[in-house]
């Protein structure tokens, strides 16, 4: 994740705490999804930014995961998100985020 974005994210967490917070990703491929998921769970994997070594342990989901689809209004999901299931490597992306989440978050 971009270093400046990490800084902004850290500020948001400092202001809001981590209680009741969930992270939702819209990343377009497995690699970026995994990196962002790791950044908000165990910390910046590249060890380069404000979130290096900072374990936020936030629950993180990708919007294409079944858990999201199950909870969100189907008509809205269909209108705003569903098409990208065909475009992106949905299985790889969602598997990567699930793996990171189950390893690192408070829900895991």
């Amino acid at each position: 994740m971009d270093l400046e974005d990490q800084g902004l994210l850290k500020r948001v967490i400092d202001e809001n705490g981590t209680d009741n917070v969930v992270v939702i990703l819209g990343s377009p491929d497995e690699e970026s999804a995994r990196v962002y998921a790791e950044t908000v769970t165990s910390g910046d994997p590249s060890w380069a930014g404000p979130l290096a070594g900072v374990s936020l342990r936030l629950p993180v989901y990708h919007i294409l995961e079944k858990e999201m689809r199950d909870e969100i209004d189907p008509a809205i999901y269909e209108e705003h998100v569903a098409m990208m299931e065909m475009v992106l490597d949905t299985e790889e992306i969602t598997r990567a985020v699930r793996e990171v989440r189950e390893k690192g978050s408070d829900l895991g």
Partner: protein
Amino acid sequence: MPNGKEVKKMLQGKKAIIIGERDGVASPAIEACLKTVDATPIYSLTQCYV
């Protein structure tokens, strides 16, 4: 695996940090979804690295 009742609670009433991408799923689209489950965005970003 969470049962149906727990699934409902994953987003309901949560504070959401949204990280979207322009050529993936952009954050306004995710926000529209979260409105339907009463989750509040506290940080919403769409990335574009091109």
